[in-house]
């Protein structure tokens, strides 16, 4: 028993000598001492010496929170041959001396806590962590800029990486952007070389038009089934010549890449720089697949790549680490009827604006009104549409979408660049520009380009003849504004990809209330998910811009490389264990296990009369089990237990705590 003063942190309120004295008379305690700073080197030496001198079986340290120094004391104990799991901490600082003022009360509570720790320790037994190997291959889910960068960095370190991308090409949202802030360089110019790099890197395999079907296993040893959706085009044969797309008779299908602002054919290549540059047949619209009529593409394809009989293919692969890079989507603006999205095609979202200004877009970079293809003379930008909303209202998102202030400034600038005589308004609540060269960029829009920034949200947009009437109020001038606009651009909030939720379930990875993946620690472990072996990259974790995404992608890659470079991993030894004699194989534990760590096996047991009987019993995979203990509670007979937190141990603590007088 070692009682720490922690300077005056503990000793100031708790009579540490009294605690040590009281514990001397506790049964099982053979040594009890205090020291100024137990965690210091000399404090640890006292512990080590006592363990040796008294041949202690276990120790209790009354000190700060175990979250602080449990590891320190365990290490000290194990350095002199004691099993580290024979160390118990009584938290008499954070949960005693710091929260209580009365010395007598605090001391008596400290004694109780020490007793509880002793009671538990008496039932402890040495634990040894299990070990497992590491598969030297990583999986990256999502082929946007985050996924591509992560894969490139991992491949660069010499490890194999697979990218799974749900759409027919990698590139993600960045491929749809025109220019990037704050440098205004063209998104395609910096992204497409990376896409090509990824395709050509011999360590990288790209599964495009594919989805993660199921995930099993654990850190170092994941088994993932990838569903490669039938694209009805042989990927290795297609040359990407595009002849089939020209000849296809079904041409009136809204293009996903151009957000429905122009059309594509039923067999299509999403865009010119697509990787892999291979056609795909949309089975919902293809006449051949639907009604067995047509077959034009097959006829014109000189390479013979068209295969109408292709089926979904399932590929199973083992991975040591998984990186989630599922990105974001703009929210649906359905609930914002006041902004007349449904009434006029000239009310567009920012992403649509990107396509309108992009040279590869539906207008070849000519910024015109979607309704009549005329030049807009007055353009209104509305920020924060659906961001920073009270979540209980169910209309928008609570958070700031982070990227809108900057891209709106960019859009305003681009508009002015194309049409210097145009009137450009930006309605804002706050302009947030915390980034390198960000505020300078925004100021340039306002100062050099003459973009009119007005503080105040737009109330309603109403079609008025061919134009749009924008009702707003200028909060600084206390003036109602009615602006006749030709084009209105809404900066829609962004949200996690709709596929993320199901993926999180498959990965047993947690999400926050907004559906973004949670990190293991918001400051100290920002690219790791709480689930070991699963890492996070890009906007799947929260709104971020391209520079941040790329930085995070690199960080995630570094973590993956660190993991894959290990030969063996040690596991947490506090895992569930099944007493097979008592287990009745009822499956209850398996039903509640969030990790699928429990399987059932038939085993022979001796029964009275010298015979044996086969019985179904639970078996815990120690490498998969994370030690939550849910199964131990679900088990009716008490056959399932959690090492380190056995029922008997917890009950011993309960008893010790409730033993004190009233």
């Amino acid at each position: 028993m070692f009682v720490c003063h922690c300077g005056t942190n503990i000793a100031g309120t708790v009579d540490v000598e009294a605690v040590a004295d009281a514990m001397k008379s506790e049964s099982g305690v053979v040594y009890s001492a205090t020291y100024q700073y137990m965690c210091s080197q000399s404090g640890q030496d006292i512990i080590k010496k006592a363990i040796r001198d008294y041949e202690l079986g276990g120790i209790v340290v009354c000190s700060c929170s175990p979250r602080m120094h449990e590891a320190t004391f365990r290490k000290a104990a194990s350095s002199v041959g004691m099993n580290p799991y024979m160390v118990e901490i009584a938290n008499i600082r954070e949960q005693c001396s710091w929260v209580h003022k009365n010395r007598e009360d605090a001391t008596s509570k400290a004694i109780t806590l020490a007793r509880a720790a002793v009671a538990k320790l008496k039932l402890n037994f040495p634990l040894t962590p299990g070990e497992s190997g590491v598969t030297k291959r990583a999986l990256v889910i999502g082929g946007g800029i985050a996924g591509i960068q992560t894969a490139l960095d991992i491949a660069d370190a010499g490890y194999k990486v697979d990218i799974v991308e749900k759409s027919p090409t990698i590139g993600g949202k960045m491929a749809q952007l025109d220019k990037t802030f704050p440098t205004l360089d063209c998104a395609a110019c910096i992204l497409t070389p990376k896409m090509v790099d990824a395709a050509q890197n011999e360590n990288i395999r790209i599964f495009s038009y594919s989805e993660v079907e199921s995930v099993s296993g654990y850190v170092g040893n994941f088994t993932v089934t990838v569903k490669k959706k039938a694209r009805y085009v042989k990927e290795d044969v297609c040359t990407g010549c595009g002849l089939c797309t020209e000849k296809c008779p079904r041409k009136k299908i809204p293009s996903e890449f151009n957000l429905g602002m122009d059309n594509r054919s039923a067999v299509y290549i999403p865009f010119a720089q697509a990787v892999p540059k291979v056609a795909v047949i949309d089975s919902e619209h293809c006449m051949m697949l639907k009604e067995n009529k047509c077959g034009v593409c097959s006829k014109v394809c000189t390479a013979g790549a068209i295969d109408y009989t292709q089926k979904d293919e399932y590929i199973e692969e083992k991975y040591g680490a998984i990186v989630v890079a599922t990105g974001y989507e703009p929210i649906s603006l359905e609930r914002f009827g006041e902004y007349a999205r449904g009434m006029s095609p000239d009310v567009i979202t920012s992403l649509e604006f990107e396509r309108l200004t992009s040279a590869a877009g539906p207008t070849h970079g000519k910024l015109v009104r979607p309704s009549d293809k005329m030049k807009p003379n007055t353009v209104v930008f509305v920020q924060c549409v659906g961001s920073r909303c009270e979540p209980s209202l169910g209309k928008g998102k609570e958070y700031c979408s982070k990227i809108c202030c900057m891209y709106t400034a960019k859009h305003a600038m681009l508009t002015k660049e194309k049409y210097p005589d145009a009137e450009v308004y930006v309605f804002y609540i706050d302009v947030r520009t915390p980034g390198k060269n960000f505020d300078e960029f925004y100021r340039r829009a306002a100062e050099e380009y003459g973009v009119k920034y007005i503080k105040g949200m737009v109330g309603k947009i109403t079609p008025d003849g061919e134009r749009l009437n924008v009702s707003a109020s200028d909060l600084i001038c206390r003036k109602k504004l009615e602006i006749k606009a030709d084009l209105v651009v809404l900066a829609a909030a962004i949200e996690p990809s709709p596929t993320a939720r199901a993926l999180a379930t498959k990965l047993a990875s947690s999400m926050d209330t907004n559906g973004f993946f949670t990190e293991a620690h918001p400051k100290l472990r920002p690219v790791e998910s709480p689930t070991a072996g699963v890492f996070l990259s890009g906007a799947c974790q929260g709104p971020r811009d391209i520079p941040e995404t790329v930085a995070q992608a690199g960080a995630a890659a570094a973590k993956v490389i660190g993991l894959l470079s290990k030969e063996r991993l040690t596991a947490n030894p506090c895992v569930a264990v099944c007493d097979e004699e008592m287990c009745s194989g009822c499956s209850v534990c398996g039903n509640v296990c969030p990790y699928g760590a429990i399987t059932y096996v038939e085993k022979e047991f001796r029964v009275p009369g010298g015979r044996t009987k086969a019985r179904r019993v639970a078996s815990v995979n120690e490498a998969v089990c994370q030690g939550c203990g849910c199964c131990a509670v679900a088990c009716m007979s008490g056959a399932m237990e959690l090492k380190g937190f056995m029922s008997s141990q917890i009950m011993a603590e309960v008893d010790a705590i409730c033993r004190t007088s009233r």
Partner: protein
Amino acid sequence: MQRTDRDALVRRAVSLMNDGVCDRVLAWRRGEFSSDVSPGVFTDTESVEKELVRNFFCGANLSKYLISETEKTEKKVLIFLRPCDSYSFNRLLSEHKFNREKVYAVAVGCDGTADIGKLKRKCGALSDIKRRGDKIIAESLYETNEENEENEENEANGAERVFDLEDVLSERCLSCNLKNRADCDEIISDGGRDAVSERFFEVRRIENMSSEERYEFWRGEFSRCIRCNACRDVCPACTCEKCVFSNPSSGVENKAAANSFEESMFHIIRAFHVAGRCTDCGECSRVCPQSIPLHLLNRKLIKDINILYGEYKSGESVSQISPLNSWTENDADPSEVAELLERSRSK
């Protein structure tokens, strides 16, 4: 008097045994009087023909016996499943308690079974009982029951008394409207009852008491418990290899309740362990020698589960997962549960 008469059961049992499909039959065995029927395992056709009985007193749920009986034979065990039994049957299957391949399940209809306690209170020892339409005619051995003394008219009828069917049915049958849910090998008949009383009426009555009254009520009930373990042994949900009450490291090991806490503890933990798995077959109350209304504990949990997590009937299918082993993101918070239940009660 039952929808499926005894002879049909006997005929099927005998022919299945003669065909070598089954060598064990789980059914009801005749006792000395028509009212003392016990569950029985028949291993030869002779005893089937002589002793198998299907009447108004066949209360026992036979499913649980499958666990031990299927182990004893290489052939199949024949079992007759009433609608209520089929739920226990499914539940046991979903917990892998027996091998379905080794069972020959036959669905039989049911009109309900008598509450022997009720009948005995009404007319003392019974000698015979008949059914005429919706009436039950009971013949008692003696005429020493209270009601007869008070009512001279009845004395004129001698020992014969007439009751409405519903007056002597066991409580669980009054609120039963179950249909056979098991995947049976054969159906002899599959009719069940229509509920005539509300299943949660009694639970609600207790809920409406004050906290003190509830405490006193259950104290009174539990204090009668003699820890004979009949409830546990008969319960088709209690199938642990080793019961938690016999496990010294569980912290609740206990053979006989020493004081009021242990009396309550046994029943609280037992009810909680069968929660979400209990099929409300009512066997616990039926076999309790002290007439403790144990099913009202289980029904409370069933009722809460239905209100909080949606209608759920344990044993409805083999693949179902107990609401206690599942969850949804929008489950009620413990702090709002009281109010939710209160609101549903006032509706």
